């Protein structure tokens, strides 16, 4: 452990600032360390042999992601800390550093005492293997921020990112953290410091895998936090601050104030129990297994040439997915996925292609969320397994059925019990697979008879198939009861052998065979000696039938839950991509709603604040729906996000999307209709490019809605040069109304007119009400909505 090496250790300091180099050297020498100083992260591997305990990197060097990667590779056993000057450093740089492999951030001034404490603090939590050590270290964050509401989002990202990296904070905890931080910070800024930018908000956070503790203090006079009325009652509802505190107390595990009331400490616990951390709770190998599976599925679904490497303790990379391909060290840029024990590198090939980069990034985030979901799934599986035990108890024929978890285990257990109960020497259980019309060997106990593990139900020579077909017990020593083929085969050498159909009786009363139980070689005489024995066998078979069927049902339920869960996850992820319209409240009256036909869809909208007070609005509809469409949608959103602010021309923006997506669109035979318009309030114009989008309208005064007709065929069909633009006059209270064909199915004339009529009737209402009315009108028209439905309404000002 680092702390135990305090004397005689060494530190590598990376900075170009002499004053910082001096200060840090003094601090590390105070610990008895030797210090060496380098000026940049180039060729850092040349210092790998030095094996420093500490690597302190000046954040103002703004190391790139590759910089952090090379540090982590050169010094796999070292603590990699960034050093930030609170007066000059950008919180975004710190976030970036922590995200890309930096373990911790120190703020100036740095003292020996502080360093020593921090090093001591890196104790290894129970159950954690060496090498996992540095990833379990706590993050200490110490920031001084201006009283500006815009910092809130950055702080949330920074702390949320830290917590997320530990993987021990579930989605609910992360949401709680987000809201709690936002409440506490806005209280400090708005009420504590009264929005005075010269006053500071101080944030001290300490995050580890188990708790996230954040202290936020302001320069205000404080307040009496003991004496707050119930915020849900009467006047308190409108009182500022009160409600935020109420929320805080609901969301955080602990909320504490200082004496004066100008500093609040919020504590959130992770989902991990403090006592049982380590392999048993979160085995690294199951992460890898899950990731390999997920990568295979993403590859299959998207057609992207996606690769995954696991980083081993010495920093080398092992290619783990796709499993059937061998690939040595990756070239080009990697996207890192952090889990507690290990880092994974993700790359989409061809490397160094802009589109690949974005796919890789998107996939990384998807895998990150999916992994969290896998964890939840494992939990629910455990729950179900517990319920399984109850079901088993009800149906069990022997005690041995107690702890089964899967069909295979269960059948083996059942057969062992059967052998014991009947005294047979060998037993095998065959389960019917309807899709292949076969009996498949599920388990066998005792000396094996034949190396066969599947039999067609129609087989004329198989005794098992006969028992199954005719749903009756078949004995080999009763030649008369056999089919002629079977009799010819077994008749001259009768064996003590019996095949019993295994039946399942549903709660409704119907009974059907689900398999066959074979028993043979009874030690004491004939197997089925009398009526009593026959009845026992039938009862056994029925019980086995119930057990097998229940297990199968449970496996089916688990599989279904998994699919539903994955879809929910994808849905949430997609909805998160859409812009938060609240940030446009001050400049426009805007509302939108997007209802995918399936969990995920291909509809999207975007809104941009552009230079010179202009506003860009986009609505797109990728043909088809589901996963393929949603990936195209995500790519389009990211492309427009990048280019919208760079070009004033809507046609150019469509060309940028065209350039980025045309190959994907052509290879998947998808296309998309896109409307993109830029409103210029100064010139009172709307300039737009419309690639085949049918439903784009301007509503001006009392006039009927005016269609903003397509200027080119849809994207994916139109030629690169073909994206024309059009320009129309635009008054501040004109409505821009965009919707997708999910709202006009099944008839463009009748359904669209109904939706337009609702729009025109509601033209003076607020944007949210207009959207509401449009969806209602669509619903009244009846008919299924097999496609994604999206509506988007915007105007600069409400009419007076």
């Amino acid at each position, binding site marked *: 452990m680092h702390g135990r090496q305090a004397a005689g250790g060494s530190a590598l300091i990376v900075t170009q600032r002499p004053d910082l180099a001096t200060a840090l050297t003094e601090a590390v020498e105070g610990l008895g360390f030797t210090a060496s100083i380098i000026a940049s992260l180039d060729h850092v591997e040349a210092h790998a042999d030095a094996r420093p305990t500490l690597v302190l990197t000046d954040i103002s060097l703004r190391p790139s992601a590759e910089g952090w990667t090379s540090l982590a590779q050169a010094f796999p056993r070292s603590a990699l800390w960034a050093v930030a000057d609170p007066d000059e450093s950008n919180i975004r740089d710190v976030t970036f550093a922590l995200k890309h492999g930096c373990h911790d951030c120190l703020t100036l001034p740095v003292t020996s005492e502080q360093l020593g404490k921090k090093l001591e603090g890196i104790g290894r939590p129970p159950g954690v293997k060496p090498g996992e050590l540095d990833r379990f270290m706590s993050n200490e964050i110490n920031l001084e921020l201006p009283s500006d509401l815009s910092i809130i989002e950055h702080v949330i990202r920074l702390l949320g990112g830290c917590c997320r990296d530990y993987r021990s904070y579930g989605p609910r905890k992360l949401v709680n953290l987000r809201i709690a931080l936002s409440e506490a910070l806005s209280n400090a800024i708005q009420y504590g410091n009264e929005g005075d930018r010269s006053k500071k908000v101080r944030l001290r956070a300490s995050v580890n895998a188990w708790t996230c503790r954040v202290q936020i203090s302001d320069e205000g006079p404080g307040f009496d936090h003991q004496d707050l009325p119930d915020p849900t009652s009467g006047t308190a509802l409108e009182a500022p601050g009160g409600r935020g505190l109420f929320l805080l107390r609901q969301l955080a595990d602990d909320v504490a104030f200082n004496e004066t009331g100008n500093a609040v400490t919020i504590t959130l616990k992770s989902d991990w129990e403090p006592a049982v951390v380590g392999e048993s709770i979160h085995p690294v190998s199951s992460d890898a297994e899950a990731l390999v599976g997920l990568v295979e599925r993403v590859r299959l679904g998207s057609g992207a040439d996606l690769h995954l490497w696991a980083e081993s303790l010495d920093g080398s990379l092992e290619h783990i997915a796709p499993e059937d391909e061998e690939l040595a060290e990756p070239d080009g840029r990697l996207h890192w996925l952090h889990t507690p024990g290990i880092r994974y590198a993700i790359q989409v090939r061809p490397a160094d292609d802009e589109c690949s980069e974005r796919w890789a990034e998107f996939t990384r985030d998807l895998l990150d969320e999916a992994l969290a979901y896998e964890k939840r799934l494992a939990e629910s599986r455990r729950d179900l397994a517990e319920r399984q035990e109850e079901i088993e108890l009800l149906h069990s024929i022997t005690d041995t059925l107690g702890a089964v978890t899967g069909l295979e285990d269960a059948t083996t257990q059942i057969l062992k019990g059967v052998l014991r109960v009947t005294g047979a020497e060998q037993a095998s259980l065959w389960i019917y697979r309807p899709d292949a019309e076969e009996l498949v060997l599920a388990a066998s106990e005792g000396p094996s008879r034949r190396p066969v593990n599947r039999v067609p139900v129609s087989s004329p020579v198989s005794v098992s198939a006969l028992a199954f077909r005719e749903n009756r017990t078949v004995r080999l020593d009763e030649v008369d009861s056999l089919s002629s083929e079977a009799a010819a085969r077994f008749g001259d050498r009768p064996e003590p052998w019996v095949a019993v159909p295994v039946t399942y009786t549903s709660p409704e009363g119907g009974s059907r065979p689900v398999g066959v139980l074979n028993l043979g070689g009874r030690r004491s005489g004939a197997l089925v000696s009398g009526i009593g024995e026959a009845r026992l066998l039938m009862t056994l078979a029925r019980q086995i039938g119930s057990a097998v069927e229940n297990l199968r049902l449970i496996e089916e339920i688990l599989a279904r839950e998994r699919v539903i869960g994955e879809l929910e996850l994808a849905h949430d992820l997609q909805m998160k991509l859409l812009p938060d319209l609240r940030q446009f409240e001050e400049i426009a009256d805007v509302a939108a709603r997007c209802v995918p036909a399936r969990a995920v869809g291909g509809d999207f909208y975007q809104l941009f604040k552009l230079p010179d007070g202009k506003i860009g609005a986009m609505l797109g509809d990728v043909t088809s729906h589901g996963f393929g469409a949603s990936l195209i949608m995500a790519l389009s959103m990211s492309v427009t996000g990048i280019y919208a602010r760079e070009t004033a021309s809507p046609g150019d923006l469509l060309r940028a999307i065209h350039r980025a997506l045309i190959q994907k669109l052509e290879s998947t035979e998808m296309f998309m209709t896109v409307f993109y318009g830029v409103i210029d309030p100064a010139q009172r114009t709307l300039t737009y490019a419309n690639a085949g*989008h049918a439903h784009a309208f301007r509503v001006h005064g009392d006039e009927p809605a005016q269609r903003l007709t*397509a200027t080119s*065929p849809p994207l994916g*069909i*139109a030629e690169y040069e073909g994206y024309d633009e059009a320009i129309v006059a635009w008054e501040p209270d004109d409505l821009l109304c965009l919707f997708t064909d999910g709202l006009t199915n*099944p008839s463009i004339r009748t359904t669209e007119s109904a939706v337009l009529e609702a729009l025109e009737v509601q033209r003076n209402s607020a944007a949210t009400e207009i959207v509401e009315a449009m969806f209602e009108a669509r619903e009244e028209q009846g008919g299924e909505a097999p496609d994604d439905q999206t509506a988007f309404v915007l105007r600069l000002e409400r009419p007076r």
Partner: protein
Amino acid sequence: MNFEISSHDDVTIVEVTGQLIVGNRQELKDEVLRLLEGGSRKYLIDFSDTAYIDSSGLGVLVSLSKKVREKGGEMRLSNLNEDLRTLFELTKLDTLFFIADSRDLALENF
């Protein structure tokens, strides 16, 4: 959706009945690609009994027409109802297809 295939001289006529939507578009695509493989080069897709085509249905028409063109053939559409006609016009897809009001008009000079 069903479709019936007949021929008129060297033109293969595919008559689509019902909706052409995401759930069934593949059938149409497979059939036309099979015919294309078999050497037919001129296609007329007739929609007199089609009420509705969704965006993925349009996608299939576009990709088929492209494939037929690549093989030196041509694909025409006929008998689109008013709704569908509007759909093609609004999405500017009418600039990419030869669309005729009736089967006879489509077969002229084909």
